């Protein structure tokens, strides 16, 4: 249809390559510190390591680390995946109601979800500690999942509602005429179409749990339940930080995120296909 403009495409590629370069440039230091032997935070302007060694990565699994990297990775995966699932399920239903149904208190609840994000999170650690203690969920991964998923729910609800609002209402009306219940419309019609939005929201919820350490370190009192960021932050001491280990750990932490995103990004092209509206 549109005449392919070679110049425009070349410029587009150049811009994406430049942006990727800028995005990755600071990360070169992470890789450099991880691959350099020793624990220095290298201040030199060159992002290339002088000597390459895998010692820091070996240490992560051995004496330099807690010696339980797999367990910590496993705990983190359980917590982050569960957070994404719980957050997604509870917010998808809510977002559907906010987008499609009319009920008393709709505006107020929407505003309430938004308002919870306005209170600075750093003030919440102590009250949350007391609350989890009362719920007997301190020192458990379940407690962490609950806290992480509820703190990510407001964004998930708002973001999903925003997407659902863009889906044409003709779809649900057609289904309703065919005798579908609200639940069926939600499950059979809307959810499949909202795949791109669900992917984005899942990534958000996953990441909000994946990198968090301060609440996890405060709530967990048993090293067997430590998540990876807690173990990673242990390399930062009061006077001395083991930067080599920290950087190697940061790479280990980042790789699953990229894998998750790589898996999810396929859904970002799906969404409404040509036949969607005509239905």
């Amino acid at each position: 249809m549109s005449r392919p403009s070679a110049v425009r495409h070349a410029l587009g590629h150049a811009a994406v390559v430049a942006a990727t370069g800028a995005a990755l440039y600071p990360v070169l230091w992470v890789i450099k510190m991880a691959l350099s032997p020793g624990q220095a935070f290298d201040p030199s302007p060159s992002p290339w390591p002088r000597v390459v060694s895998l010692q820091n990565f070996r240490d992560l699994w051995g004496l330099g680390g807690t010696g339980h990297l797999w367990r910590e990775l496993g705990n983190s995966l359980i917590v982050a995946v569960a957070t994404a699932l719980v957050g997604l399920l509870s917010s998808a239903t809510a977002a559907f109601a906010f987008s499609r149904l009319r009920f008393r208190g709709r505006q107020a609840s929407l505003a309430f979800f938004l308002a919870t994000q306005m209170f600075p999170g750093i003030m919440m650690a102590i009250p949350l500690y007391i609350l989890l203690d009362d719920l007997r969920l301190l020192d458990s991964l379940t407690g962490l999942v609950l806290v992480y998923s509820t703190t990510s729910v407001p964004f998930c609800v708002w973001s999903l509602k925003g997407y659902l609002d863009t889906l044409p209402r003709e779809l649900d009306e057609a289904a309703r005429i065919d005798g579908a219940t609200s639940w069926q419309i939600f499950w059979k019609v809307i959810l499949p179409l909202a795949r791109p939005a669900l992917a984005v929201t899942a990534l958000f919820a996953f990441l909000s749990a994946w990198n968090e350490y301060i609440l996890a370190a405060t709530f967990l009192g048993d090293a067997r339940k430590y998540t990876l960021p807690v173990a990673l932050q242990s390399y930062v001491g009061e006077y001395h930080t083991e930067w080599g280990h920290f950087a190697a750990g940061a790479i280990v932490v980042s790789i699953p995120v990229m894998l998750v995103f790589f898996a999810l990004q396929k859904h970002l092209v799906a969404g409404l296909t040509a036949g969607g509206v005509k239905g």
Partner: protein
Amino acid sequence: MSASAALLALALVAPRPVALWHSYRSEEAQALQSLADRFNASQDRYRLELLSIPFDAMSAKISAAIPRGHGPDLFVFAHERVGSWAPSGLLAPVAVDAARFLPGTAEAFRWEGRQLGAPLAFKTLALFFNRRLVASAPKTTDELLALGGRFADPAQGRFLLAYQSGDFYYHAAWLFGFGGSLFAPEEGGSGPRRDEAEGRAGSEGRLELDTPGAEASLAFVAKLQAEGFVPQEATSALVTELFSQGKAPFAINGPWFVGELPKDLDYGVAPLPVVSATGRPARPFLTVEGLYLSAHALEPEGAREALAFLVSDDSALLRAKVARQLVANRAAYDDPSVAKDPVLQAFRAAAALAIPMDASPRMQLVWEPGQSALRAALRGESPKVALAGADRQLRALQRPPPPRAAPWATLALVLCLAGAGLFFARRRPGTAEGGSRTAYAFVLPAALATVALVLLPILFSLGLAFFHHRADGGYDFVGLGNFADILASRGYAIIEPPSFYFTLAVTLLWTGANLVLHVGLGVALALLLHAPWLRLRGLFRVLLVVPWAVPNYLTALIWKGMFHRQYGAINGILRRLGFPAVSWFSHFATSFGADVATNVWLGFPFMMVVTLGALSTIPQELHDAATLDGATAWQRFRHVTWPLLRPALLPAVILGSVWTFNMFNIVWLVSGGEPGGTTDILISEAYRWAFARQAQYGYAAAYAAIIFVLLAAYSVGAQKLLARRESA
């Protein structure tokens, strides 16, 4: 028969667990673990169990866990919190024979006549010298400076002395050496409740920084920097780099430095030199790490036994040998292997001159003003002016709490406001379209969880805003006093950096700049990544998410390093392009710019991913139709893509601005508020009151409440504006 009875007894009397929390790493952690193993093998009544906790989280975790009975029996921490923890009843007294320990180390844990901890090890500063470059350490500052011409050549990256000159902890050594002090003698008033015999030089009376000695010390370090003897903006990493590469023959650092230096480096350690101008030695702070016994310990007897074992001379010797720890026990230094260790002996000598850090909560107030005076002097401001400013800030921080208030007046006001709010909410049209049970069922799970785990903590914190947190852990009701103090900018002129209004303006600028750049970059990149003609789309998408994926604690510090004046990559690029190097953190505009650049880098992937998701819901047919109608690319974006993108993007934009408004750790890590607290945002103030200034949770909560109200007003306004535009 007797054998089985013994077995039965053993099974019945399984060793009871004694929990110990610590933040030790590597060799120190290994030494502690092997001591725990020995203790457990030495008796069968108790089992000492260690839990490693990130240092960042330790203090808050202790304060939260112990009162609720989830704390450890024992924990390791520096002595300077004794004065904060003792009044709130977290600590139990322990028996310590002070004569067994180096002078001042056991006494550091005495608080109001009670021994509330036992010393394990100490930390202080000493002078490291590179033996390949100099034969011995200079005894005086004049001797040191005389070597300046031989070694210093800043253009070549060579210096005389590497140390963190911009850090008040390090500067304190010069301050005391020049005869300065932190505490001015109280005029006739009630002095502190502490024995003078404990030898805390100059720790009586009220905090005061503006002394002739302090002025001379600031002038001294400003001169060191002006002559190129010390590196600018020295971080701990730069100090390690310069000293281990032989680019500075001297470094001032603590015992942890030993582990950072290459094994083959030939260096010596000596006490800090005597300040020639005064004839007094430079005296660094002394920090003592010790074992505390929790007042709520479940196994106090076992804990006492383990504590006695861990601080015994035998255990100390193992810690000194395995971890090269500067143990507090005198006897350890007489052991042949420790006596031969020049580093341990030099630090032991340095400790004799060091000044134990004041353990009272008000000591926490010193750092911020001290640091800002120091940085100002290093930027070239007059020391006198810098110190006067620091003292003004100290007075503002030490302002008396708001007076106690009668609860009923505030209660009535709050009730009136709530009533008015409800009245207007009820009158708002369009909310009452009849209930729907299905709808409530759909919303219930999310709403229930959010009310329980988000709303309750918020209400709890908001409630604190009406109280003053006393040093003993109790609360006084002060009504709206905290709010009045903040809004009236008590202690500061209205347009001065730490005042509420100045900080608010910076926060708004910060939020606006970030938002525009996040959305602009995010949408532009998403449009490119959505284009069907782009090759390797999947690869680019994943690579562009990397800034979001890597833990930002590390990447923020890497950005800070890239903005370093001499060694940063950004100035390196500027120099190659022929521009002069920029001193990024010396001016508001550049320092602010550095914060924004870092946060934009961290945040654009989020907007990009959200936009990608939104773009995929826009039917391609619309684009094709517009193209057939002859619309240009810009027209297609403006009239097709953007209107459809906006509703999906709106939540991300509103929430993104709310998060940015409260995004304090980037500012904290990159500019740290430099210069002079100007780049701080509102949330930094809340954080400082809560965690760095005598645990003033009331002020912190009042700041949080004000932030909440501002953001609520903003989002209501934003939604109204958008609703009007959409209906228009």
